């Protein structure tokens, strides 16, 4: 760790109705990875958006390289050498990688308004080489995987000669091996003296990668601690302000042999190849695999959201034809999308309307008039049963935290009286406290006899929750493990069991550090 590079003090920021930052502070040395953690809404992202010029601060000072600075817009931050890589990737799909890297400051030709495309490509190539990234600068951004797009974003940030690099949840969408690759690049940068702010919900990672950890809660900075000495339990208790236990609950053997859902020889293009499996009553069936393994595609196919090429689906032993989500709901299947904001919720509507959304028929009187009393009662019941934290059922879902939004989606499917629930990444972007509540809820649902398919990229979560685990790779099921025999290593082995042709492809995935 080097000298003090940056100091933020007394930072205050309010949005309409929310006091997002309250006298927050943060400091960063050169050559350090400084993790910033806290529950959703703790103010981490807001603090960093102020640092990168996206939001103006209401009060406080930023001292950078010994001087007080004013950062009114993203461009000013760039000039100072402060770059932020956002949680939602920010590449322009229609542009090439090189064009993306240099957008906003393209090298010009002889005339000042004409682009020098050759130079753009050459400089990007040099940049990729220095990071040991094997990518063609002329590829369209749309053609890359999420992980590679992220590498390109880092390359872009580096091309500003950034002294401060802020990463907001960089590993949220990455697989284990991709995370290793990311960490390799982060360490490389740290050794060059770059100060790195690392926002993450994955606490296991922090001990691996960070030097110091700052914890935020409710817009305030709780403390900054040394990563080497602090325990994860201690971080969690600082985050939530109370002690919660994160130990795994007992996963009971599943005594109920009744098969509620059976899928036979499901196929759809290259995405789903000959997928067959059974789901039993009261079971939590984990679906593990890397990004793009086809898990979401299988879920969407069963739910009727995408057409299938061939295959049969049986619900409680009866063959059913599911051609649309409506058919799926009629057969008692509910799907909770990994992107709940886009596919799971009507953000601009209130809690009550969202809970009733999938089952309005229940609430409609003979003349097509919605029975408000009945929807209100149902919504109140689920808000209570699921412990949804909301001031009232009239609150807009937009204003709830991620965990509570997820509970609203669960409430919606419970209202629709679905017995088979497919959860796609149910805890993505949800803070630790809310996560364990979601876990508890899933366990309870299974106890009540609901059958659950849980797709998750977090191995500890899969191991902790599932009765059985199905592992997919490139559209195929590569293995099935029981709760007793599954280990992280075992799952990863199956998840990377690629067909020979594609295995060569894997080597090309730009990993200077580990060639398989």
């Amino acid at each position, binding site marked *: 760790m080097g000298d003090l590079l940056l100091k933020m003090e007394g930072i205050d920021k309010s949005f309409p109705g929310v006091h997002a930052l309250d006298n927050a502070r943060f400091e960063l040395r050169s050559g350090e990875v400084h993790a910033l953690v806290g529950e959703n809404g703790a103010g981490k992202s807001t603090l960093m958006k102020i640092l990168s010029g*996206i939001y103006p601060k209401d009060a406080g000072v930023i001292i950078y390289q010994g001087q007080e600075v004013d950062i009114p*817009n*993203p*461009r000013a931050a*760039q000039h100072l050498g402060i770059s*932020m890589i*956002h949680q939602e990737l*920010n*590449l*322009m*799909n*229609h*542009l090439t990688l090189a*064009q993306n890297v240099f*957008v*906003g*400051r*393209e090298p*010009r030709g002889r005339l000042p*308004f*004409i*682009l020098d*495309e050759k130079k753009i490509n050459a400089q990007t190539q040099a940049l990729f080489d220095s990071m040991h990234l*094997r*990518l*063609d600068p002329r*590829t*369209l951004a*749309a*053609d*890359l995987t999420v992980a590679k797009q992220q590498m390109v974003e880092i390359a*872009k940030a580096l091309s500003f000669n950034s002294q401060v690099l802020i990463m907001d949840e960089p590993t949220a969408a990455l697989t284990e091996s991709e995370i290793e690759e990311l960490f390799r690049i982060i360490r490389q940068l740290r050794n060059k003296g770059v100060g790195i702010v690392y926002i993450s919900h994955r606490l296991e990672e922090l001990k691996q990668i960070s030097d110091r950890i700052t914890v935020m809660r409710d817009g305030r900075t709780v403390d900054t601690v040394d990563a080497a000495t602090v325990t994860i339990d201690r971080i969690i208790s600082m985050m939530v302000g109370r002690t919660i236990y994160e130990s795994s609950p007992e996963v009971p053997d599943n005594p109920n042999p009744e098969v509620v859902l059976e899928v036979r020889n499901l196929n759809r293009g290259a995405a789903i190849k000959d997928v067959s499996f059974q789901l039993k009553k009261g079971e939590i069936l984990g679906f593990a695999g890397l990004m793009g393994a086809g898990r979401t595609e299988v879920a969407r196919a069963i739910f009727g959201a995408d057409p299938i090429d061939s295959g049969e689906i049986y619900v409680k032993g009866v063959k059913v034809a599911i051609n649309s989500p409506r058919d799926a709901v009629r057969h008692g299947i509910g799907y909770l999308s990994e992107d709940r904001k886009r596919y799971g919720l009507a953000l601009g509507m209130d809690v009550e309307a969202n809970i009733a959304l999938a089952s309005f028929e229940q609430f409609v009187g003979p003349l097509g008039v919605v029975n408000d009393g009945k929807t209100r009662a149902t919504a109140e019941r689920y808000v209570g049963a699921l412990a949804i934290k909301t001031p009232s059922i009239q609150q807009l879902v937009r204003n709830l935290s991620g965990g509570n939004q997820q509970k609203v989606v669960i409430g919606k499917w419970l209202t629709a009286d679905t017995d088979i629930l497919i959860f796609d990444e149910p805890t993505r972007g949800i803070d630790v406290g809310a996560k364990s509540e979601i876990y508890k809820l899933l366990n309870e649902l299974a106890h009540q006899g609901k059958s659950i398919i849980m797709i998750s990229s977090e191995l500890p979560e899969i191991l902790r929750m599932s009765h059985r685990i199905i592992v997919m790779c490139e559209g195929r099921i590569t293995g099935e493990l029981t709760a007793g025999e599954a280990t992280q290593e075992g799952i990863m082995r199956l998840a990377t069991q690629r067909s020979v042709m594609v295995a*060569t*492809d894997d*080597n*090309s*995935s*730009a990993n200077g550090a580990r060639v398989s």
Partner: protein
Amino acid sequence: MATAETTLTTGKQSIFRSSAAQKLLAFAALIVIFVVFSILSPFFRTPENVVNILLATAVNGVLALGVTFIITTAGIDLSVGTVMTLSAVMTGLAISIYGLPVPVGILVGVLTGSTAGLINGLVISRMRVPPFIATLGMMMIARGLALVLSTIETGTVKPIYFSDTPVFRQITMGSVLSPLLSPIAPGVNVPNAVLILFIAALIAAFILAKTVLGRYTVAMGSNEEATRLSGVNVANWKTAVYALGGTFSGLAGVMIASRLNSAQPALGVGYELEAIAAVVIGGTSLSGGQGTVLGTIIGAFIISTLTNGLRIMNVPQEWQFVVTGLIVILAVYLDILRRRRS
């Protein structure tokens, strides 16, 4: 290896994702339309009629070039037709009523378009009025102003003629190419308007592909927030795109005034839809990020060939509207299919 992998994926998907397929399709459609009308009517393929089609394409094509930029940013401009008319009237005022030299009059017309576009851009990027509404407002404003300005001389709405300046008509209807073409194709008169269209298209293609403005046009259409976060002043560049669109409308205004040898203040409504249709038929995506100048020119030719052919077949004008409307819907539907596949 990374390259091998990427070429593989692009090779597979880009046929549908890029607009190449639609451009090809549009070009094939143009040829089919031409062949069908040629069979149906012997007059259709005469040199005079082909020149008619070229002339009709010129004005709509120039308008559509401007609209291409705006739609590529995922915006829309409904005001191009009436801004064109306003520019024509301003040119008429400058030359015929205030007696300014022809080049000055042309400049006045083009700059009128730029100004209207600039105002569109400012209203959209600074006041954050949605493009649809902002340009709908400008459409009415320009229409009203064109009518008001035409009353300056006589007190009543009436066309302004360029009777004292015959050279003005030559700008579009003369033919600097004829002396060059006469040894190869004697008697064929390719009017200057067509030449102007092609030069304008070359300039537009250059701006889109090679300049900073073109790059940001695509970037904003692809992901506006990301462009902003990259440090690009999105408000200013978006304003510039609308001003550029307006400039093309201004040029179209001068061209139509020259072609008709008069500024017709009541003209212009409906031109915006034909221009938008040409852009969409050409394969520019309404969701932004993807624009093609060549496609737009092909699209403009499809519209004018079809209109011309239907007229020659004595299809009433009312039905021509119906056909154009159907084609626009079909083109947008193709755009949606294309996006769904990618």
